[in-house]
Every structure is written in structure tokens, then in C-alpha cells.
């Protein structure tokens, strides 16, 4: 039997941009928000090589959580664990512990990984639009899910592009190739594509590393807006970006979680001297 996650709030037709932020009294949008992702004593290996050691942290719903640390510290590996992107790498596996999303162990063999990735979208370092039109980029995921209703697809395209703060810039050229867009626009298109399938969680792996400051500012603004509806986990090498965008920050070093706290604490008064040295640029 295949374990599937609970269905999304409504059908795809329900708007992304206008989807109401469900703030039930029991699920407040604040630092005490519930943990949507629970990472519990996780070890991770690439074959025999251990990449993560005993990682335990909870990621709160509708907050931005930043993973920081020097190259090779395991932050991207952990990010990719959250939607099992590492399954695509031979020999890569969670060797101990559990990652639970809404209480479901995502590495359980009964979990449908396609369903998982629908709920946990991803935006990569380098924008990777399909060599298709802007419109087709947005609708690709829905089409392969079998959605053919043109009106519904149109609606999702507009709402996704609005959600990614791109609609006004591209509304008159939706059927032109996405490859003709600027780098910043392409990255926001990838975000629009990710939110078109209505995920609950969006993983971002250095989403601004190839962007100029203006495009970076637009993506950061977008992250700030998106967290009203989505839980966002971002890997970044840009300390100021982590400070500006995130609510909580986790610092990793050599595969270990060194410190995890609210972002203000990490950048104002970290408890661990290694964190202090890293955020101050004294090592790494």
C-alpha cells in the first residue's frame, strides 16, 4: 500500500495568490507555530562517507528557516533530504534517524515520493526553466498531473506569476520562450512553477547566488511574501540574506548542526563561538 499525504487544501484551481492564510487559533503564525518538519537524530551517508551527523531540528510552519555554513558542511544535503532529492544519487541514504513531515516519516518505503515532492517544492541555485514558453513552464506540473482545463490552467498561470511577483512583467508574452527572460525573472519563474502545484513547503538552494542585487532584492521580497502561505527553507552563503529573510537560522559545520536559534540571536548573540566566528567571517 502506498502512503499518501493528505490531499492539498483544495483543488489546483484554488488560487495560490489568493489562498487564504489559514490561521486557526490552534495554528498561530508566530514563533510558537507548529513544527511542520521534524528532523530527528538524522545521519546521512553518500555511500560509506558520512555527510550528516545526528541532526535534530524542527522547522516551523510558515516561517523562513535559513541553513548556513561553509561549503561541504551538509546544509544542501540536509535540504535535499527534505524532499528526497538525494534518492537520485547512487548510494546516498539517510543512515539513521527520521525526517517527518506532518508526522509522516518521509523515508518510509510506503511514501509516494512524487506526492512528497508535490508537497515539498524546490528552487535551485541556477534557474532552470524548461526550454518552453513561460505559460508551459508554469502549467507543466499540472499537465502531467492530468489537468487539461484551459480556463483552470490560465487561472493558475496568472495566480502563480502574481504570487511570484512576475505577472506584470510577463503577462504580454506568456507564450514566448522562458529562456528569453533575464536571470532574475527566470529564477522567479522557477518559484512560480514551484508554487503552481500548491506545495506546502518550498526548499530554496542558494536561489540568489547567480542574481544581481536588484534581482536578489526581488526574490527576497518574494520570500517575505511567500512565507504567509508556505513554509520556506533556504540554503544561503549570503549572511546578510539569511539575516534579512529568515526567522530562524541553523548553522552547520562539518556535517553537524552547531547552533539553531531565532535569526536575531544567531546574528546578535550566538551561543557558540564557532557560529560567532562564521557569521563574522572569521572562518569558513
Amino acid at each position, binding site marked *: 500500500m502506498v502512503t499518501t499525504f493528505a490531499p492539498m487544501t483544495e483543488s489546483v484551481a484554488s488560487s495560490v495568490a489568493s489562498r487564504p492564510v489559514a490561521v486557526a487559533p490552534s495554528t498561530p503564525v508566530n*514563533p510558537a507555530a507548529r513544527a511542520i518538519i521534524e528532523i530527528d537524530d538524522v545521519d546521512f551517508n553518500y555511500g560509506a562517507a558520512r555527510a550528516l551527523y545526528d541532526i*535534530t*531540528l*524542527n522547522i516551523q510552519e510558515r516561517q523562513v528557516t535559513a541553513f548556513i555554513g561553509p561549503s561541504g558542511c551538509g546544509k544542501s544535503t540536509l535540504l535535499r533530504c527534505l524532499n528526497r532529492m538525494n534518492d537520485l544519487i547512487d548510494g546516498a541514504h539517510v543512515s539513521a534517524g527520521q525526517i517527518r513531515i506532518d508526522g509522516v516519516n518521509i523515508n518510509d518505503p510506503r511514501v509516494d515520493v512524487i506526492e512528497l515532492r508535490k508537497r515539498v517544492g524546490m528552487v535551485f541555485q541556477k534557474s532552470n526553466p524548461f526550454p518552453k514558453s513561460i505559460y508551459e513552464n508554469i502549467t507543466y506540473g499540472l499537465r502531467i498531473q492530468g489537468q487539461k482545463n484551459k480556463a483552470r490552467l490560465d487561472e493558475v498561470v496568472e495566480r502563480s506569476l502574481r504570487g511570484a511577483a512576475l505577472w506584470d512583467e510577463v503577462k504580454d508574452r506568456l507564450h514566448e520562450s522562458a529562456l528569453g527572460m533575464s536571470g532574475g525573472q527566470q529564477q522567479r519563474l522557477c518559484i512560480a512553477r514551484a508554487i503552481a502545484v500548491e506545495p506546502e513547503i518550498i526548499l530554496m538552494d542558494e536561489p540568489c547566488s547567480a542574481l544581481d542585487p536588484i534581482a536578489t532584492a526581488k526574490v527576497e521580497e518574494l520570500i517575505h511574501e511567500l512565507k504567509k502561505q508556505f513554509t520556506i527553507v533556504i540554503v544561503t552563503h549570503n*549572511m*546578510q540574506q539569511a*539575516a534579512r529573510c529568515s526567522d*530562524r537560522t*541553523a548553522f552547520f559545520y562539518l556535517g553537524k*548542526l552547531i*547552533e*539553531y*536559534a*531565532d535569526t*536575531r*540571536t544567531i*546574528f*546578535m*548573540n*550566538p*551561543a557558540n563561538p564557532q*557560529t*560567532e*566566528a562564521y*557569521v*563574522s*567571517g*572569521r*572562518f569558513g
Partner: protein
Amino acid sequence: MKRFFDAELEAFRSHILQMGERAMDQTRLAMKALLEADIALADKVIAADDEIDKLEVQIDDEAIRYMTLRGPVASELRLIVVGMKASHDLERVGDEATGIARRARKLAIEPPLELYGDLPRMSKIALEMLRDALDCFVQEDEQKALSVIRRDPEVDNLNRALYRRLTSYMIEKPDTIARALELMFISKSLERIADHATNIAEEMVFLSKGLDIRHSDIGKQAVLPTPGSNPPV
């Protein structure tokens, strides 16, 4: 790992200490001018105030430059912020010292009024507090900073006692009112200098622990709470 701009931070710290030394010297010399009725010395103190003002401007400039170009975070950011605030307090100490020197100058040409009472003691305590607070800038020793804060009521009490004594004296001998008022202002200046030392000490707790204890009773507690308590991972 050493960074190419680490020297800027050390220079900033040493300029605060330099300013602190100047402010303490000014207070010490102003009190000497008062007690020895030395007009030339009082004039020297008044003229030197400008140097402290310039140091404040220089320290602010260095702080803004560092924040703009070096993006400080964590303890470095706290150092820069605290440094700017401490320099403002030190500038005010310099102003108080100048005020004392001005009054010392006036009193020096009047018949002596042997009512200095505890002024030398107040000055000694205020200067010790300032010295200890500035030491914390180097040592980042919050316990020492707390001991400075706890001494402030001592100076407050001396100021109040002198105020009462001078008030009685003025009632008894109205011809001394003008001179006694000058002494009251000097006493108040010393009390203010102790207040500035207290402010600096409070800032030093923030520098050392990241804990803001201003306008609270935390400074009176034996053990400081843990700042910015980290939520459980």
C-alpha cells in the same frame, strides 16, 4: 582567521579608551582646580573640552564606516553600538568636567567657602566607577560592570546629603547663597558623571552578554539571566 580589517576594530576600541582617559583627566583636573582655587588650571580644562568633542565625532565616524563597509554582526556589532553610546556618555562626562571647571573659576575669585564636604570623595568614587566601566570595555567582565552599577547609589546619597547641608547653610547665611549654589551644581555634576559611568557599565553588560539591563532591576540581581534564550532545536 585574521581579517584585513581587524585592526580597524582594535583602533575603534582604543579610541574609546583614549576618550575615556581624557574624560577622566578632565574631571580630575577640574576638581583639582576647584580644591586649589587654580584659575589657570580651570581655564586649561575648559579649553581642552573641544578635544573630547572631536573624539566623539571621530568615533561616530569610525563606527558608521565600519557598519557600512564591514557588515559587523554578533559581538562586533555589539562593540560598535556600545562604542557609539559610550562615546556619547564620555562626551557628557567631559561637559560636566567643563562645568565644574567653570564653577571652580568663579569660586576661585570669591572668599573661600569651606563646605566642600564630600565632593572629593564623590569625585573619587565617580572616577573609580568610570575607570572600572572602561576596563570592562577591554576585559568584557560583566561582574565588574555590575559592581559599577551597584556603586551608583553611594554617589546619589552623598549628593543628597551635601544638598541638604548646603540648603541649611544657605538658610543660616544668606550671603553664601551664590557660592553654595555653585557647590550644589558641582555636586550634581559629579552625581551625573557617576550616572554616565553607570550607563557605560550597563552597555558593557550588553557588550559582554548581549543582555540589555537598562531601565530594569536586573543589574541588582546576583546572577544575570541568560540572554536571548534559544528555543529548543
